[in-house]
């Protein structure tokens, strides 16, 4: 059976730049009931860490180091990153 179809998944959540300042942390670990999406992880992060509630409604996100939609499914052991608008160069 696909592990993403039930049980609990442990997801590493990372915050960068201004979002790290808002959240008051650069990372944290969340246990989420599966199945879950990147958006579900974000919603749980907002509840878990009050500063994270100040993030925009639909921030850029990455799943396992690739840009990802908020409705992408997450699995146990995944890394979800919340990314302010890029400003490199």
């Amino acid at each position, binding site marked *: 059976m696909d592990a993403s179809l039930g049980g609990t998944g442990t997801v590493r959540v990372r915050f960068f730049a*201004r979002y790290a300042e808002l959240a008051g942390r650069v990372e944290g670990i969340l246990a989420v009931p599966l199945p879950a999406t990147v958006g579900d992880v974000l919603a749980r992060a907002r509840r878990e860490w009050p500063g994270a509630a100040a993030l925009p409604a639909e921030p850029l996100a990455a799943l396992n180091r690739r840009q990802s939609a908020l409705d992408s499914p997450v699995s146990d052991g995944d890394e979800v990153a919340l*990314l*302010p*608008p*890029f*400003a*490199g*160069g």
Partner: protein
Amino acid sequence: MAHLSTVPLSLSALLSEVAAPQCGGTCVFLGTVRDGPEDGGVTAIEYSAYDAMAEAEFDRILAETRGRWPDARVAAAHRLGLVPAEEASVAIAVAAPHRAEAFAACRYVIEEIKRRLPIWKKELRADGTATWVDPSGHPSMVGPA
């Protein structure tokens, strides 16, 4: 190779990476930390990145560039940490048989870097203030390049 650097970027290192006898045109782009009349006294920019993703995305951008311009030789680097005004935050070198490809490939790399790399900058000013730069919400902005 690693494209992110916390020490000053070496243009000569990039140039020697791309130099080749079959290349007759080399295009170089440097993005430097700007303190223009409207920038409010920027003394430095502090760059930070999602390192692992930025390195992977950097590799993808360079691979795409080599795919589109197969005869071009490309090298690029982005600096992280505190970069004082005037110093380079990003450097790109492209060598190709002819100049048109070198210019086109170099332009492609800088535009994709700005669009796709998970890198952020905080402007530090002489008055002690610091602000995160949000290109999407601050179109008159500024910053390097």
